[in-house]
């Protein structure tokens, strides 16, 4: 059996401390008036959000 070396992907970090803080603050502002009340409103979050809901068995 030959030895296989696994190449690890080295992705670059895109969120520096300052960028992360700014993005989180902007999201807070955007979503402040849109609290999650029901599964129906969660579904409006887009494809990524629907996928997350699938983990909880809510998306169906």
């Amino acid at each position, binding site marked *: 059996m030959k030895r296989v070396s696994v190449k690890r992907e080295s*992705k670059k*970090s895109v*969120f520096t*401390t300052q960028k992360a*803080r700014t993005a989180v*603050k902007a999201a807070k502002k955007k*979503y402040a008036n849109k609290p999650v009340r029901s599964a129906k409103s969660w579904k409006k979050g887009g494809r990524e*959000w629907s996928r*997350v809901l699938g983990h*909880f068995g809510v998306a169906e």
Partner: protein
Amino acid sequence: MGIYDRQVFLNVPFDNRYKKVLHALVFGVHQCGLVVRCAQEADDGGQVRVDKLYNIIAECRFGIHDLSRTTLDSEYRLPRFNMPLELGIFLGARRYGAGQQGRKSCLILDRDRYRYQVFCSDIAGQDIRAHSNEVEAALRAVRNWLQANLPSSQVLPSSALLVRRYLEFRRQLPFICRMESSTPAELTFLDYKRLVTYWIEENPEALPVPPDRVSAKRSPARNGL
């Protein structure tokens, strides 16, 4: 609590299939007031990987070990054993380490509760929980384990609150990523950890009052004294 008591070593798979549970675990630990550490946090090619693991394990009181990827590889028909090995290092540090190393505590996760008995029966007697690859079960297991191991004065958010907060964070995450022309799938471990930390700071939620403070507030008459 010192830094040692606030750090949680994460010994879990880093593949795409596990990402949903990994992301939930990182959020859950940070929401409980602790900090996750794992081998992916440092990208120092000059350091031997196992040395990096020794250092991180020595600095963490808590450890979450997920053995759910101990399965046969489709090509070589052999299991991946990195995670059981790291669990062994952690248990060894607790048993033979000096000073505060003896206070180590670990949570072992697997897909099914008794599957470990087939491939690693010597760990029977440890705290082993099944998550069935479900985010909610993983969050609940971590929260309950931390609550049992932290001082009673530190009250953690309930499992339901934890799940609700995580859902809210995940709802905002695609928007947050778009700010840097990225997507949640492209986030590195450090990026994700940083975003979780700042999101929790920016969106604090009132935690339940610790039991000792509740009893102190009650009048003697109500307590029947």
